[in-house]
């Protein structure tokens, strides 16, 4: 029983971790918290839905296209909407992020209507047993994809020149400018990467849940919970926080009450911010004000 829960918890947590990591990329690069991030997740899944169901394209190609499209969208949002008001109050930045997300949601609804859509069964169905644990191939694929993404991210950030540049900007924006890095272009790229990762999250989440425009809200709050728990701005924190959140939801659901699953994330946010705002791995973070 416990082993089964842990396996499912990891699979669920991996998704939260992915979305939280995507938000952390954007946050670290620009110290902006993207309140529209849940809608980027939804948008990624939706693009795949359009391509697979309506245009009949193969799933993998659709997924790739969605990720590329969302990358471009992220860069465009940064250049056109965020950059011009970066010097302004944090309130305006939060609003802009919300507005962009809301627009995406509206756009989806224009095509979609008000219905909940079943996502095409693109992942293999069925289950198999490993010892006492029931495994679904889809779970393995989800967890595997997340681990692969995190691994690629880690390699890029810690072992390449781009990664050094990224760390430089994260540690000191002015310092990066002093050594000739085009900070604005870099930040655009990071928004693109964040959006692309969000899209990937959406593509992996949608087959598990169902697809509907309001998918965004629950995803956003869970990503917040993962980031809060792990410590804002910490990549390790976002990953661990996501995993812990996934596990806690399942454990709380199994051992206390299934009614509490939905509020685990909220309680984590409230508890952590009131008791230890820096979370597990965070430093006292600086938010753009």
């Amino acid at each position, binding site marked *: 029983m416990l082993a089964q829960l842990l396996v499912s918890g990891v699979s669920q947590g991996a998704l939260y971790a992915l979305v939280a990591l995507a938000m952390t990329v954007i946050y670290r690069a620009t110290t902006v918290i993207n309140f529209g991030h849940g809608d980027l997740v939804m948008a990624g899944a939706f693009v795949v839905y359009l391509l697979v169901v309506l245009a009949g394209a193969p799933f993998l190609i659709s997924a790739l296209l969605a990720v590329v499209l969302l990358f471009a969208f992220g860069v465009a949002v940064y250049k056109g*909407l965020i950059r011009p008001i970066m010097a302004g109050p944090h309130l305006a930045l*939060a609003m802009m992020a919300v507005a962009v997300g809301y627009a995406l949601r509206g756009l989806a609804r224009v095509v979609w209507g008000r219905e909940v859509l079943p996502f095409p069964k693109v992942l293999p169905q069925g289950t198999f047993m490993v010892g006492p644990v029931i495994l679904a191939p889809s779970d393995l694929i989800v967890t595997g994809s997340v681990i692969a993404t995190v691994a690629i991210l880690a390699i890029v950030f810690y072992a390449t020149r781009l990664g050094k540049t990224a760390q430089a900007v994260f540690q000191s924006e002015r310092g990066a400018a002093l050594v000739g890095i085009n900070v604005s272009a870099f930040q655009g790229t990071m928004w693109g990467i964040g959006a692309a990762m969000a899209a990937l999250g959406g593509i992996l989440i949608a087959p598990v849940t169902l697809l509907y425009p309001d998918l965004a809200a629950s995803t956003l709050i869970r990503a917040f919970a993962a980031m809060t728990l792990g410590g804002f701005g910490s990549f390790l924190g976002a990953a661990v926080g996501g995993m812990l959140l996934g596990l806690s939801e399942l454990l709380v659901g199994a051992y206390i009450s299934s009614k509490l699953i939905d509020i685990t994330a909220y309680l984590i946010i409230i508890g952590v911010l009131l008791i230890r705002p820096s979370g597990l791995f965070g430093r006292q973070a600086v938010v753009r004000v």
Partner: protein
Amino acid sequence: MQPSIDVTAPPTTGGPSRRIFWIIPLALLGLPFFLNDYTQYIVNLILVYVLVGVGFNIVLGNLGQLAFANAAFYGIGAYATAILLYHYKVPLLLAIAAGSIAGGLAGALVCLPVLRGIRSFYLAIITLAFGELMRWVYINAETWTLGSMGLHVPRPVLFGWVLATEKQKFYLFLVIVTLIIAATSNLLRSRVGRAFMAIRDNELAAASMGVPTALYMVLAFAWSGFVVGTAGALYAVLVRQVSPEAFNLLELIVHFGIVVVGGLGSLAGSIVGAVALTMAPELLRDLPGYEELMIALMMILVLLFLPGGLATLLERATSLFRQTYYRD
């Protein structure tokens, strides 16, 4: 440039411009004669959202805190009123007052993290979580709320008169909204409102001038909750159906939009914003998605090109509002 003002002139806070609080509502008294039942319903809904905007703006615009619990204040007010009307058959005005007070208490509660030093995006996130938590409470406190089905509020009765039509409700709403706006305006134009804005602009300086900042933050949150709680109460009376999904994140975004589009820190702006954001979607309601697109577009345009919101245009068009309302 502002015209120079004669030092001997009466202070703006007491001048003849106060009359606008009574002139506009009086002018509105005739409105129902031009409306059918549906358009009257929209006007009533606008009145509800006027309070939503005015209340939210106190915390967001006047106090300058990024607190996103407005949908929770709204829901708590609506549920308090609906529960009292449905289960306990409490008189209408009493039930509405209870909704307001419940909202005010929720406001004071939400101020706690602020007093713990949580600000900016962190405050936004913790208050978002609070709002979602409340939604879970609505769903699960079934004894009172009837869960996700929601409560069906009985037909409102005022002193023995059944408020059967939208027009009848309109007059009740107009009186309540007018009184609350007048009170809010009084508050914001006093030393209390100044203290809110001093905290927003420069917390350290405010403290160094002897403003007890913690006390005023609680006060601002509580008043904001009170006003929005009243809006929730009126919503329950208007729609007569109170269910959890009416107070979700999407609802919050509309509230946010009203304040942004109207103009941060502007009471007049909140009113205009409420009109704009309630009417526009109603016109588009048969086209799913366009409502969201429209609201998002308005927000983006305002943020990029009109940071002061529609209130800026209002101010340019007439100097009346600058003098009437404390802050534009």
